[in-house]
C-alpha cells in the first residue's frame, strides 16, 4: 500500500553518473595483480564451450588427475597463484622434486648409486622448461641444499 516515492533531483543526478559508469564496468583484471601470462580476462568464446570452471577444479584431487605436462605448464605459466601451488603439490605426489637452483623438476629414474648427508647421485628424469620436454640425466648429483 506504499505509494511511489518520486526520485529526487539528487537521485536523478546519481543515476546519470551511474548510467555512464555502467558503460565501462570494472574489468576482472582491474582487481588482480599483473600476471606474466594468464590474466583474468574473460573472452567471448562459443557458448557451447565450457564457460565456467569445472566443478572441484580448484582441488588437489583434480590436479592429481592432470597429465604431468599440464602440471608443468601450470607451474611455469601461472606463477604466484594457487594453481601453481596445487600443481607443485600434485607433482610432488608423483615423486617429482623441485631443484631450486636449476628451477626444474627432477624424478629418480632408478635408485641413486650414492646417497649421503649432502647429496644423492644417479640417473634422473627432469623437465627442461626451456626445451619444454622431459630429459634423462645420468650421473647427476642432486645436492640436498637445492632440494625445495
Amino acid at each position, binding site marked *: *500500500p506504499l*505509494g511511489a*516515492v518520486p*526520485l529526487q533531483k539528487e537521485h536523478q543526478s546519481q543515476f546519470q553518473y*551511474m548510467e*555512464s*559508469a555502467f558503460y565501462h564496468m*570494472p*574489468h576482472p*583484471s582491474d582487481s588482480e595483480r599483473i600476471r606474466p601470462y594468464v590474466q583474468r580476462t574473460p573472452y567471448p568464446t562459443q557458448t557451447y564451450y565450457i564457460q565456467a570452471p569445472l566443478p572441484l577444479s580448484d582441488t588437489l584431487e583434480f590436479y592429481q588427475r592432470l597429465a604431468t605436462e599440464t602440471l608443468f605448464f601450470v607451474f611455469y605459466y601461472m606463477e604466484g597463484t594457487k594453481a601453481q601451488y596445487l600443481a607443485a603439490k600434485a607433482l610432488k605426489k608423483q615423486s617429482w622434486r623441485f631443484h631450486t637452483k636449476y628451477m626444474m623438476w627432477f624424478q629418480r629414474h632408478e635408485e641413486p648409486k650414492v646417497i649421503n648427508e649432502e647429496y644423492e647421485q644417479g640417473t634422473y628424469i627432469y623437465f627442461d622448461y626451456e626445451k619444454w620436454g622431459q630429459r634423462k640425466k645420468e650421473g647427476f648429483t642432486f645436492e640436498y641444499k637445492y632440494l625445495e
Partner: protein
Amino acid sequence: YEDPPGLVEKTDFLLREWIGIYNSQPQGRDTTKQFTMFVHQMNVHGILKTDDLITRFFRLSTQICVETVYRSLTDKSVTMNLTRAKIYHTLDAFVKLVALLVKHSGEANNTNTKVHLLNKVLGIVAGCLLQDHDTRVIDFHQLPYQRIFTMLFLELNSPEPVLETINFHVLTAFCHTLHILRPCKAAGFCYAWLELVSHRVFMGRILATTPHQKGWPMYAQLLIDLFKYLAPFLRNAELAKPVTMLYKGTLRVLLVLLHDFPEFLCDYHYNFCDVIPPNCIQMRNLILSAFPRNMRLPDPFTPNLKVDMLPEISYGPRILANVSIMITPAQFKKELDSYLKARAPVTFLSELRSNLQVSSGPGVHYNILLMNALILYVGSQAISHIRSKGHTPNMSTIAHSAHMDIFQNLAVDLDTEGRYLFLNAIANQLRYPNSHTHYFSCTLLYLFAEANTEAIQEQITRVLLERLIVNRPHPWGLLITFIELIKNPTYKFWSHEFVRCAPEIEKLFESVARSCM
C-alpha cells in the same frame, strides 16, 4: 594551490624514474634496494623535507597517473587489453612506491607514522577522485582509482610482519576511505566501490581474519551505505539496467555473506532492514534467513512442531542496534515507558499514531525507523516482563498487557499504509529460532485471532504471503508462522472471504498450503 615552482616537473621526473625502475624488475621481485636508492633521490630533490611537500608530491603523482590513464583510454590505436596492461604498469609502480614509503616510514615499530602516511595518501587519492568525479561528470572513469585502491590494499595485506602489526589500522583507513567514497557521494564510482568492498581479500581480512569481529561494524556501515544508495531506485522498483547490475551485484555479495558469515547478517539484520525499502522482499528475506552456523533448524514442515519447546527459543538474538535511543523524541520515549510500566495514561494509545506520522511527503507518511524501533523495543520489553513473572511467552501470556495494548492499538488505529509498515516491523523479527522470533510469531497470530475487522486479517496474510511467494530463501520464522496460521483451526483461516477473493489467489493459497503440508 600554490605548488612551489618546479615541483610539478620534479614530481613528473621522479615518478617516471620510479616507474622505469619498478618495471625493469621481474614481476614480484623484491625492490627494496632500488627503493632505498630512489628515496635518496627524492631527498636530493627535497620532496621529503616537509609534510606539506610530501602531500603535494602525492597529489601531483596521483594526478599525473590519472591523466596518463585518461590519455591511454582515449588512445584507440591499441587494443583495450594492451591499454590495460600499460595502465596497470604505471599505476602498480605508483602503488608500490606508496606501499614502500608507508612500510618504511618511521622506525620499524612506529606504527603511527606509517598509518598517518597511509591515511594521508588515501585521503589525497579520494580527494582527487571526488574532484575528478564532479569535474568530468559522465566522462569520469573509475579505472585509475579502483586500481590504486585495490593494489594498495593487496600490497599492504602481503604476509609481512611489519604489515601484520598495522593491519587493523590499514583496514580502518580503507573503510573510512570507502565510506567517504560511498555511492551517494560518487555514484560514478559505485561499481568499482562494490568491487572493492566485496574483493575476496578485503572480505577475508575484515570479516574472517581480523580477530574478535572487530571489522564487522565497519563492514556493516559500508553495506548500509550501499543499501541507502540503492533504496530510492529499488523503492520504486525502477530497475533500469544500471540499477539492476548494481542490485544483482549486491545480491551476490549478500549470498557470500549468507553462506560464509551468517552471524554477521544475524547481528546487523535490524540495521539493514532499517534502510532496505519495504518492497525489497527477496533481498530482505535473504538477510533474515541467516542463522548461526552452529544451529540446526528443525524442519518447519515437521508435523506438530512444538516451537515453544525448542531450547533456542529461550535465548534472545544479539541486536547490535541501540533500539532504545532510536525512540524519539525523549518525551515520547518517556510516555512510552510510563505506559509500559503503569498501563496508563490511556491517552498514550490515542496519540500513538500521530507520533509515528511524518509530514506527508509523497509516499512517505510514517517514520519507518521509529516504527521499527518501537516494535522491537516493546516486544523486547514484553518478553522481559513475561519472564519477570516466571512465565514464558505463549499465546496466553502475551495477551492483556500494556505491550499488547500497543500492538492491538496500532493494528486497529493505523491506516492501511501505517499498518503495513507496522506488520512489516513485526515480520522482520521472524528469523531463526530465538525468543524474538517466537514472541513476534505469537504476536502476529494473536493479532490475527483478535482482529475486529477482516481487513486486518487480510493484511497480516498479505504481509506474510508476499514474503513467501518470492524466490528463496525464506526465513524459518516466517515459514513456521504461516504454517501455524493455515493449519491451526483456531484461526479459521480458510473460512475468510479474502482467501477466495480471486481464482488465482485461491490457487496460490492452495499451492502454498500444499508445499507447507
